[in-house]
């Protein structure tokens, strides 16, 4: 048994919110640089070069990469040997978000009720996903999610007979419908299997996997490669203004499912695919 004070969680979340909104993770940084070199469309290349400048200014001047600093999505993988003291874990995470978004000059984009729509003014609450794992550590991933791309995400409840071709259609349909709205080049997170909510959560978590790391399941890896190629043949391009770089990666996660179903979720993220992970 290891005891962790939740104040340590607050401190980490606070710092990670600020870091994620000013600096892209190394995998995304590399992918964006490569895209700027490989894009064939002149306007597309110009946009990708502007995005390089944008990243540089964001880091140097400490100004968020994008004004939509997102709703804070937080994954907590909690070792079952861990005991928390000092208060409620959920409250500690939200306090970290509150502090990070306030002292970090991040935009407060959360409304307290989906219909009444009054801004909570501190970007809380976060969306927190808990997972129990082995060990005595806590792995925290902070992934602020912008809604230009979130709004273009989809869940498809396919039939088993639709098979892998149905999955491919679903992914390409979501990407095509998203087009310029999702701020391409995008990262496409996909969940296949499970239930209605499980596939959506897998798609979200897939966005936090480094864009240069494929699935370890051979057919899934092939599907990731094929989908990336097909998405980059749609012509949508950077900013949706035409080109050969529409997506930087397609990350797919799978899970067992019911004999009657084939759920597929496509969670689209813009090029500001933010994710920071720390272990405490």
């Amino acid at each position: 048994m290891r005891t962790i004070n939740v104040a340590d969680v607050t401190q980490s979340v606070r710092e990670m919110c600020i870091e994620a909104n000013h600096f892209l993770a190394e995998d995304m940084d590399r992918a964006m640089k490569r895209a700027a070199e490989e894009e064939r469309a002149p306007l597309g290349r110009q946009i990708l070069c502007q995005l390089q400048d944008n990243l540089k200014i964001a880091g140097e001047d400490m100004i968020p990469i994008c004004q939509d600093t997102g709703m804070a999505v937080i994954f907590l993988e909690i070792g079952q040997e861990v005991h928390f003291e000092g208060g409620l874990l959920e409250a500690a995470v939200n306090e970290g978000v509150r502090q990070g978004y306030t002292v970090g000059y991040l935009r407060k984009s959360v409304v307290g009720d989906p219909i009444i729509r009054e801004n909570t003014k501190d970007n809380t609450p976060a969306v927190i996903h808990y997972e129990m794992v082995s060990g005595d550590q806590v792995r925290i991933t902070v992934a602020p999610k912008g809604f230009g791309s979130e709004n273009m995400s989809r869940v498809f409840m396919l039939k088993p007979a639709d098979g892998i071709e149905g999955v491919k259609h679903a992914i390409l349909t979501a990407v095509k419908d998203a087009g310029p709205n999702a701020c391409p080049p995008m990262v496409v997170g996909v969940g296949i299997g499970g239930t209605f909510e499980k596939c959506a959560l897998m798609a979200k978590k897939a966005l936090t996997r480094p864009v240069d790391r494929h699935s370890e399941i051979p057919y899934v890896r092939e599907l990731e490669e094929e989908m990336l190629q097909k998405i980059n043949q749609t012509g949508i391009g950077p900013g949706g203004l035409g080109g050969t770089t529409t997506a930087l990666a397609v990350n797919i996660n799978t899970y067992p499912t019911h004999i009657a179903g084939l759920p597929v979720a496509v969670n689209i993220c813009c090029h500001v695919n933010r994710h920071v992970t720390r272990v405490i």
Partner: protein
Amino acid sequence: MERHIQAPVIREDACRLRAGDYVYITGTIYTARDAAHKRMQEALDKGETLPFEMSCNVIYYMGPSPAREGRPIGSAGPTTASRMDKYAPALLDMGLVGMIGKGKRSGTVKEAIVRNGAVYFAAVGGAGALLSRSIKRSEVIAYEDLGTEAVRRLEVENFPVIVVIDAEGNDLYETAIKEYCVSENHFVHV
């Protein structure tokens, strides 16, 4: 073609712009996004005046991050324009000459753009740090309680945008992707 225009924008200048033009805007523009548009619509419904004149003006669909000390504004890139489609035609009919955002517009908005000789520009989505450098002053002029969604008057210098929908109804999102699309077969719906 690369062009420089002054805002507020003379209607003849707007009508000369063509989809695909790279335009640098200098002058005064206004921000409004979801909640501010809703309030403006409610004001119109009640016969009240709007926070700024629509005639010859440009609305930037944008809600900035907070400004650090000594800076006019925080990160300041465009938001998705289609959420304002419900409100845009009425504002265009009142004289609004330009809109800056990102993403597709509805057929109804396109018709209103053509009918009024207006223009829809895209700024590069997700480039809020870069775009903030072209904003020299920012002042909240209405709906302050909406926070980032308040209406702001911005003074901009060489603010970079691309004409997506012009006064003739040409749509760059539709034409540009065809050049790089390998197969139309991908566009089959499930």
